[in-house]
């Protein structure tokens, strides 16, 4: 029989039925049916299909039942090491422009489902960024490129190979004349080897590289100063004082390693260590994560940074020993702006006091003069920096643009990137690209550049490809495929190898050869470790040349020209976008829905403006930006007494939706229209424009999301530019903001103190909030140890009876005397160190990836239905407590908030159907199958961490939720492949929330039982289980483990006197506790503060504050109820 029979509706009821067929009879009669191929009609595959179909039907019993017809094919040959349900981990690396990120990928039966950092790469310590986590989703993007095209004609693999061969032969004929390649920069040594070979073979070929956010200005300056291509690698772990000049060093290419190193300098075990904490000064034009971690923060425009660093250098550098001409040019730059002299001198004094442990970091968008002065300062400070030698940079996009203009390029090959979208606006790339006779685009998605190309070659995702690269410090890392290419896509290395007419054209061999050439020996070990140790870039010990330094400083006209900014002469700063970076993640739903940690905006970018500018615009242009109505009258003594005053939102909200005013932004004759979002902490006249949104040729996710800032960005001002004006319109655009209220309202939620106050008063964290004067939560047992509390105290309220694992079954005599074989059930708990958290959101994406958390789309986020199990709350606090004004200077506090696993969980008590219950390990569990969706639990959750499936998020597509049964009901196969099979995919109408990654706990328990064997030692060692959020955290802010074990990491953390429960007075007894945050201000600074703003705000409103703060009569009333802390 033919296999086509299977596709029809004909089925056999049973094998016997089938056995009546002559072919089957014949097959059975043969004594040794050795090979399926010998048979007529029935081959091995169709036999398997028949088997599957008949078993499927046998299971149904009655033909005609309308169950979904599915053909289940078992592995005809079980691959080795693949056990369904048991993940297999492979190392690989995520390619980036300046470096590759070493990662480990979790795969289930061949499907990559989760990305984790590779802990073998010590600098990152197993942590990842949100982008790295989310890059997995691009593999399963339903809109990704699936086949190659020439015009509208499909290019089969064979035709594609012919096409490449043709390109190669053409290039060969004329030595590469008229042939140009524009590639994304890459650290891959294999690619570099192939490029060299290309260049050698086709000497006239042009190879240029471009990436819009290739932050390598410092490398260019260093290359000049050190006479060789170099990169600075700060050893932040050794620092005590850091000055960041618009350098958001906690994000970006080396952000993970730097966050990790920085966090290590901020870790404080107890009050004695408090004073050893490092101190961070940040001078910023935009409010960044780095600025939010700063102990002192100065708002300055990008164009004022040169003056700042020049003034600083005059304090730090040995002025007498300086070349007088250099000194003169530094003085000239310093004189361009009037700055707070005391801020500069005290900061400089503090840095100098920590010579050898102090460092100055400079943003990559700042001019060469700033970069070079920083190098000189760091040299003077003996800053812990390594300069390493890196491969030389290639030519930039300008070269190709120029050749295109002069029509010298016939064939333009664009390898990745998206120049038609993100090239500097002055190049006019879209028109230029059309001037090439033939443009070939090789990329992973059909985008703006592909649209213009005559030939499109679909690129494989990195999880489908072989490759290699270097980590930021130069360590060689492999890129190995996790899965066969899902579609008809092509690998970059293979493309280049064929172009270079290499004999070795498969990527695996190329990578292996490169590995051998780089001195590696054990390729398999390389793959299993995920890196080649001791392969980092070599250090350079050359001192920067003073002469070159002078040249760079003197030649910098931007730095030495005084720029006065005003409302009519604004500065524009271009930054990477928290959602799509430079545009490459534009079709990535996880990133789109992941709130920007500072603005908390999802699915959009906005022109960020300072409150002062907003006020001036409001006054001069008559368009309302701020909310008009003060919700509560601040002038009334009654409200002051009742502590009901509210700090107004920075944005206008209408029915919970941010109503952003749309503005026309003009610079140098170019104009865009975009919504504005007022953000405290910005330099007054600097507009911050996140790039990478507003893509036009993009998949369904990225369509109509945000605005495109690239049209304003020219080669002259890639980092920032001057002379912009803004015109407000009457139009209003709703922004999906996940946090509407910026202020903590003086509540003791994020508890903060200064390092010096903490060293004097180590119990400040527990002396805040209502619990400090409410009855003790554990009553007479309040002084018991954590271990006693978690094992002996009333908890849970479960109606289920759990089997006791802690003692032998009562009727089994055999185990008597072996009670030690039954250790206590481990009690899981978590501690989050608020002092370390930088609010990077990696945990949010990691949780989404691990736990099959769906995305809901902008419309639903606007309605407040985002599904994140873990969110980062961001609070601003200001020095002056004035609820009528939006503060210009703020301190930022982050708090990761997820299910707290309360022992007395308010949610459990109110669920009418027992769907959320406690288990013996102290987890607050959710029985999805039992949930009917009354949502009472979510209402009663004080932390508001429960998430409800208002629609069938998984089965319905974004934008079609409201269609009900009339809309399509199924999840695309491709999306299904990403799902973690160990976590239930929730249906509509059920509640869900953080489970402490219960699947990881269970997997560890099973593994431990296997390891224990007869020994009965089923206690999971500390550190074996890492929750997804914990694993992703670069700052090691999250510790998780057994709180009944006094020695576990989490117990150690909870033993800190900074440990507190959020809303502890409710007596919910959360298993997740927080370690209060510390700030480390310099008392000599002009902006020094005795307490962090959040703390003084708390003291003023709810605490017993110093007598001077009691001036308002009304506020006494409330304080009377508070005994002295």
């Amino acid at each position, binding site marked *: 029989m033919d296999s086509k029979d299977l596709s029809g509706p004909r089925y056999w009821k049973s094998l016997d039925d089938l056995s009546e067929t002559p072919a089957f009879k014949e097959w059975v009669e043969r004594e040794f049916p050795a090979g399926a191929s010998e048979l007529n009609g029935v081959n091995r595959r169709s036999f398997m299909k028949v088997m599957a179909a008949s078993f499927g039907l046998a299971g149904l019993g009655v033909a005609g039942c309308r169950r979904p017809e599915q053909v289940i094919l078992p592995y005809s040959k079980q691959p080795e090491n693949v056990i369904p349900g048991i993940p297999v981990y492979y190392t690989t690396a995520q390619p980036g422009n300046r470096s590759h990120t070493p990662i480990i990928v979790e795969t289930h039966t061949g499907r990559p489902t989760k990305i984790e950092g590779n802990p073998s790469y010590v600098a990152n310590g197993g942590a990842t960024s949100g982008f790295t986590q989310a890059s997995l989703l691009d593999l399963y993007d339903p809109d990704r490129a699936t086949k190659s095209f020439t015009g509208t004609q499909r290019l089969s693999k064979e035709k594609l190979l012919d096409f490449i061969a043709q390109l190669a032969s053409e290039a060969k004929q004329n030595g590469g004349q008229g042939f140009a390649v524009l590639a994304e920069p890459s650290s891959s040594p294999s690619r570099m080897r192939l490029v060299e070979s290309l260049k050698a073979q086709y000497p006239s070929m042009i190879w240029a590289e471009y990436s819009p956010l290739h932050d390598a200005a410092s490398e260019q300056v260093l290359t000049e100063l050190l006479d060789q291509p170099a990169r600075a690698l700060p050893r932040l772990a050794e620092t005590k004082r850091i000055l960041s000049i618009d350098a958001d060093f906690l994000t970006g290419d080396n952000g993970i390693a730097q966050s990790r190193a920085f966090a290590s300098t901020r870790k404080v075990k107890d009050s004695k260590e408090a004073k050893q904490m490092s101190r961070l000064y940040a001078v910023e034009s935009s409010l960044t994560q780095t600025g939010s971690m700063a102990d002192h923060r100065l708002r300055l425009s990008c164009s004022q940074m040169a003056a700042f660093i020049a003034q600083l250098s005059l304090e730090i550098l040995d002025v007498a020993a300086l070349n007088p001409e250099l000194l003169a040019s530094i003085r000239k730059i310093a004189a361009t702006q009037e700055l707070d002299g005391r801020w500069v001198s005290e900061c400089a004094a503090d840095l100098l006091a920590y010579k050898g442990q102090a460092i100055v970091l400079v943003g990559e968008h700042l001019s060469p003069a700033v970069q070079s002065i920083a190098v000189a300062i760091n040299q003077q400070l003996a800053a812990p920096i390594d300069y390493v030698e890196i491969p030389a940079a290639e030519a930039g996009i300008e070269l190709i643009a120029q050749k295109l203009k002069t029509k010298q390029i016939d064939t333009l090959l664009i390898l990745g990137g998206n120049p038609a979208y993100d090239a500097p606006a002055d190049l006019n790339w879209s028109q230029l690209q059309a001037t090439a006779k033939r443009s070939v685009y090789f990329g992973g998605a059909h985008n703006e550049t592909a649209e213009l190309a005559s030939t499109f070659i679909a690129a494989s995702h990195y999880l489908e490809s072989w490759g290699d690269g270097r980590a930021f410090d130069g360590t060689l890392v492999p890129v190995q495929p996790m899965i066969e290419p899902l579609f008809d896509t092509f690998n970059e290395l293979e493309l280049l190898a064929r172009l270079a007419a290499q004999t070795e054209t498969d990527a695996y061999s190329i990578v292996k050869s490169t590995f051998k050439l780089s001195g590696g020996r054990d390729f398999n070990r390389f793959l299993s470790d995920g890196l080649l140790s001791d392969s980092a870039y070599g250090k350079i010990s050359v001192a920067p040349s003073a002469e070159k330094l002078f040249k760079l400083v003197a030649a910098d006209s931007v730095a030495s020209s005084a720029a006065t900014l005003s409302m009519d002469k604004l500065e524009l700063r271009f930054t990477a976008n928290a959602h799509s970076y430079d545009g490459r993640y534009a079709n990535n739903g996880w990133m789109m829905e992941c709130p920007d940690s500072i603005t908390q905006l999802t699915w959009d970018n906005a022109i960020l403006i300072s409150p002062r500018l907003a006020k001036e615009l409001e006054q001069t242009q008559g368009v309302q930006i701020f909310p008009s109505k003060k*919700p*509560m009258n601040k002038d009334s003594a009654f409200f002051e007494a*009742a*502590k*009901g005053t*509210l700090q107004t939102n920075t944005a206008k*909200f209408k*029915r*919970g939706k941010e109503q952003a005013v749309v503005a026309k932004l003009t610079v140098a004759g170019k104009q865009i229209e975009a919504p504005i979002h007022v953000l405290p902490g910005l330099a007054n006249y600097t507009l911050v424009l996140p790039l990478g949104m507003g893509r036009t040729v993009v998949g369904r996710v990225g369509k109509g999301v945000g605005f495109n800032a690239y049209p304003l960005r020219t080669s002259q001002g890639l980092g920032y530019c001057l002379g912009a004006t803004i015109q407000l319109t009457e139009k209003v655009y709703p922004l999906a903001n996940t*946090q509407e*209220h910026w202020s*903590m*309202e003086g*509540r003791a939620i994020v508890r903060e103190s200064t390092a010096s106050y903490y060293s004097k008063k180590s119990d400040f964290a527990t002396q805040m909030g*209502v619990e400090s004067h409410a009855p003790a939560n554990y009553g007479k047992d309040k002084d018991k140890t954590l271990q006693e509390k978690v094992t002996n105290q009333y908890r849970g*309220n479960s109606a289920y009876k759990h089997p006791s694992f802690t003692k032998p079954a009562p009727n089994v005599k055999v185990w008597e005397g072996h009670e030690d074989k039954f250790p206590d059930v481990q009690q899981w708990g978590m501690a989050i160190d608020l002092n370390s958290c930088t609010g990077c959101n990696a945990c949010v994406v990691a949780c989404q990836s691990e736990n099959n958390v769906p995305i809901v789309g902008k419309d*639903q986020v606007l309605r*407040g239905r985002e599904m994140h199990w873990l969110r980062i*709350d*961001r*609070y601003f606090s200001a020095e002056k407590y004035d609820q009528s004004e939006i503060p210009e200077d703020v301190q930022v506090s982050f*708090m990761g908030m997820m299910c707290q696993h309360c022992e007395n969980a*308010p949610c459990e*008590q*109110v*669920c*009418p*159907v*027992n769907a959320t219950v406690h288990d013996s390990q102290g987890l607050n569990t959710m029985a999805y199958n039992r*949930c*009917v*969706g*009354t*949502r*009472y639990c*979510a*209402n*009663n959750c*004080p932390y*508001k961490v*429960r*998430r*409800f*499936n*208002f*629609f*069938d998020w998984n089965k319905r597509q974004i934008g079609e*939720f*409201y269609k*009900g*049964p009339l809309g399509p009901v199924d999840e695309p196969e491709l999306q299904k492949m990403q799902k973690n099979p160990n976590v239930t995919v929730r*249906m*509509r*109408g059920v*509640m869900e929330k953080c489970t402490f990654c219960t699947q990881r706990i269970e997997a560890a328990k099973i593994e431990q039982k296997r390891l224990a064997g007869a020994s009965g030692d089923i206690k999971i060692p500390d550190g074996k289980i890492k929750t997804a959020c914990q694993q992703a955290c670069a700052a090691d802010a999250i510790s998780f483990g057994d709180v009944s074990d006094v020695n576990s990491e989490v117990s150690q953390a909870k033993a800190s006197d900074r440990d507190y429960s*959020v809303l502890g007075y*409710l007596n*919910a007894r959360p298993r997740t506790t927080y370690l209060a945050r510390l700030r480390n201000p310099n008392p000599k600074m002009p902006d020094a503060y005795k307490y962090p703003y959040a703390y003084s705000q708390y003291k003023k*409103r709810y605490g017993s504050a110093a007598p001077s703060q009691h001036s308002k009569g009304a506020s006494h009333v*409330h304080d009377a109820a508070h005994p002295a802390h």
Partner: protein
Amino acid sequence: MATTSQDPSLDPAQAALLARVEPAVLEEQALVTNNRDFNWVTNKICRIVETETPLWWWVCMAVALATAAFTGIGLLWLVSTGVGVWGLANPINWGWAIVNFVFWIGIGHAGTLISAVLCLLKQGWRTSINRAAEAMTIFAVVCAGIFPLFHVGRVWFAWWLFPIPNANGIWPQFRSPLEWDVFAVSTYGTVSVLFWYMGMIPDLGVLRDRAVQRLKAGLYGKGFSMQQAMDVFRKYLYGIFAMGWRNAGNHWRNYEMAYLILAGLSTPLVLSVHTIVSFDFALSVLPGWHTTIFPPYFVAGAIFSGFGMVLTLMLPLRALYGLHDLITQRHIDNMCKICLGTGSIVGYAYIMEFFIAWYGANPYESYAFINRAFGQYWWAYLMMFSCNVFTPQLFWFKKVRENAALVWVMSIFINVGMWFERFVITVTSLANDFLPSSWGYYSPTIVDIMTFFGTFGLFSVLFLLFLKFLPLMPIAEVKFVMPAADPHGAHGDDKGGKH
């Protein structure tokens, strides 16, 4: 000038004093005015059912049915698509559905209070309004029940809230106030239906007997007549439901006893249902919900809204059916006074909440209440406060109570105010709770609004059917409070009976 009958035992000085001050006679207005006899009462009430259906009824029915369809469509969309079609979101996971539930359940309170509590307290004036009020109770419970049932995410599993033995061995969670709600509301519904039906048995007997009499009297002649067919229908249908009522002495004795027992059973329910409904809020940890004042305050509010609704319904009926002799100014006065009393209790509770919030010195609590009144939902609070606290205070004035049109308008205000009270409690507390990071704003969708709007249609459909097919007032009980029923009373005195 009123004459004063003086006790001869008074000493002359006192008598002189009394004569000088001329104490006024406190007239007690009769419960049935215009010296009506028993027959008039029977005819008046039975003819509503027996005569041809008036045009206005048909018009109202059509409108009511069309309105009720909104609820049907809204629920269909909801169940087929997901709870997301409503305006709910984090942090406001309960919105209009729960507001409407509490609103309707509250309305239901007057019926039982009138029939049970006032019966036990021997308040004669209850008789003309109790039947309709009880009907209102039952229909309000029907409307109320829709919301908690359909607001759940997976309505097809809503039966899990009932303690049905099952193979999984999972029982409902008996510590959840929502679970208590299931029992409280279903008990309340059941007892209300029983009480209503029990009280109706003698009247059903009357309707049956009248139909039988007409059939026997040969009124209809030969050939088919609609009236005749209806009477045949009445004969059997009322016959079945009258359960063999023969007006016998022992029937009356059993009836009175059963009625008293049911009144006794219902009385605690009047208090328990809304107490338990208030536990949905009071037993949570949420600032603004977690207060001990809720049970009495909810019960008072429920009675307040219930009487508001009785006024809203009875005043038009009185005008439409010409029932001025049965629903007299005295009835309206009494209802207004109850509204005044319960409205004042509610107002006291509103103020007391603020005091406790301040006195409790808990920043979350004090914020919740200040925010309620002056925060983003200030308009709802203002609506609630003015309708519920200021409106009933006008009932201190006799002039106001005597103006039926004004009373009717004010009763609507009370209904609106009480809906807003539930909205304020439910939504404002959820919208701004502990962590300012998760503060939000709730606004309903068109589906929310239409589903609620439709329940008024459903209620009206049921009430119109009640008017058409069942006696609007308990005929026998009304007769009990008439002067003619009191052989020792002042016969022929046009002041009527004294009860």
